[in-house]
């Protein structure tokens, strides 16, 4: 099981990371067959087919095929927008890889803490006599009501863990909410750096989505983006003619919503609710759960 576990961990985050970092693969140029070959080779090295690993295999393979296919599809309409979307798509995948890597490294840190803690053994002997027999029985502190309540908890049905279907579009931070937030923070006159806009972002994905929001607003002519110096801060300001805000097309843009009301979608509400509570626009009926565009065409709407 140990060997299996090591491989498994490598398999979860590393496949794409390794492929990219070790072989410097540009997934848009490498033959898809080569990627699949690499995975098949990995699968063959495993002693038996493990469901978790097989799932992971499918996930990564599907993501790669999706990206590759996108690249190969004929481009209709506005080329610029299409490329922007491609960029967004890649950025989301990048964000996901980085998040994986972050927790992989955090896990290593936790293991180091465990190793260090293992060097010490806590005192657990407890009180010696006569104190030991003075201790009241813990059950004496429990009332019959509390005991029956515990029984109630014990026999309450636990939800059977469902099979997760979120593999393909796992990131659920809504661009619309980010747009609202950007507009809230942006002064009527004057400008704000992107850095300031994302100050307080708790996670990388928040920054990515804020960036997408700024791009979307730019595309709609609502904001201007300027970068005074190379590699300098992006400066965001309101466009001169600030017309009525129309986010209609966004509904389509965010079409890749997982329509089941699952716990993943709830996450958004839970995580973001505090931030947007005072924002009436947050009550918009059409909440979307996934920012990943369903197709390249969707973004043009």
């Amino acid at each position: 099981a140990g060997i299996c576990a090591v491989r498994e961990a490598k398999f979860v985050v590393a496949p794409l990371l390794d492929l990219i970092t070790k072989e410097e693969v540009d997934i848009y140029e490498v033959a898809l067959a080569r990627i699949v070959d690499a995975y098949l080779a990995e699968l063959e090295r495993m002693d038996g087919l493990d469901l978790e690993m097989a799932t992971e295999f499918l996930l990564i393979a599907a993501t790669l095929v999706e990206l590759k296919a996108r690249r190969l599809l004929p481009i209709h309409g506005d080329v610029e927008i299409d490329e922007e979307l491609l960029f967004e798509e890649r950025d989301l995948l990048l964000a996901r890889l980085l998040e994986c890597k972050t927790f992989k490294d955090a896990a290593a840190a936790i293991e180091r803490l465990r190793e260090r803690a293992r060097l010490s053994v806590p005192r657990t002997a407890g009180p010696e006599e006569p104190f030991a027999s003075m201790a009241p029985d813990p059950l004496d502190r429990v009332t019959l009501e509390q005991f029956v309540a515990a029984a109630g908890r014990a026999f309450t049905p636990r939800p059977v863990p469902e099979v997760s279907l979120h593999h393909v579009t796992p990131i659920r931070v809504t661009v619309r909410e980010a747009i609202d937030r950007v507009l809230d923070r942006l002064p009527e006159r004057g400008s704000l750096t992107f850095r300031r806009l994302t100050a307080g972002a708790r996670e990388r994905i928040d920054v990515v989505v804020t960036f997408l929001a700024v791009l979307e607003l730019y595309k709609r002519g609502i904001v201007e983006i300027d970068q005074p110096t190379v590699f300098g801060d992006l400066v965001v300001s309101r466009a001169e003619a600030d017309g009525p805000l129309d986010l209609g097309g966004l509904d389509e843009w965010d079409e890749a919503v997982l329509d089941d009301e699952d716990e993943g979608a709830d996450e958004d509400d839970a995580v973001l609710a505090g931030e947007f509570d005072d924002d009436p626009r947050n009550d918009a009926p059409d909440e979307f759960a996934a920012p990943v565009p369903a197709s390249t065409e969707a973004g043009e709407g």
Partner: protein
Amino acid sequence: MSEGHDADRTVVRAIEAVLMASPEPVEASVLAQLLELPKKEVEAACEALVSEYADAGRGFVVVAVAGGYRFQTHPEMAPYVERYVLDGQQTRLSPAALETLAIVAYKQPVSRAQMAAIRGVNVDRTVTTLLERGYIEEVGRDPGPGNAVLYGTTREFLEHLGLDSVASLPPLHEFVPGAETVEVLEKALLGRSPSADAAEVADTAGPDEAGASGV
């Protein structure tokens, strides 16, 4: 010796005695109640004990763990203690379980679906393992539809890691991949940049993100 000094000594000795008699870490508030002293005062006395034993060159130390204080063996004595305590060798956690544990530790309260979203795979098996080990527990229900079970880390988790609280975990932003990794990944994923503008934007996105996630 002044009376004040004697009183101080008694406080220290009483704390030591209670820590010695307790099978688990003792909270400062419990000690404060026992000694009928302000919690702040007791905490200061405990912290003084922690530093006193850290430098005393004895076989044991006092540490702040899981919200309380306890005696434990000095890490330098590990070779001797290991030989004596046979069940000291804890079975290792699989890398998959460790990663899931890290997600729970940093993102609690968190649902299985949220963990799965980050790890990209089903986490049911690892969650079961972590529950069995007592590292995580149910901490509530998501108020939204589905009422997903939310998980958090346990007191035992803190004790196993020798941490006082979850807040003493190294901050997550320390693990956000460095610019180099981001660059390598970006390069590979972006391929040829969609347009010159976008490329420039991409260049600045990296540092911006790093700065923001440090907040």
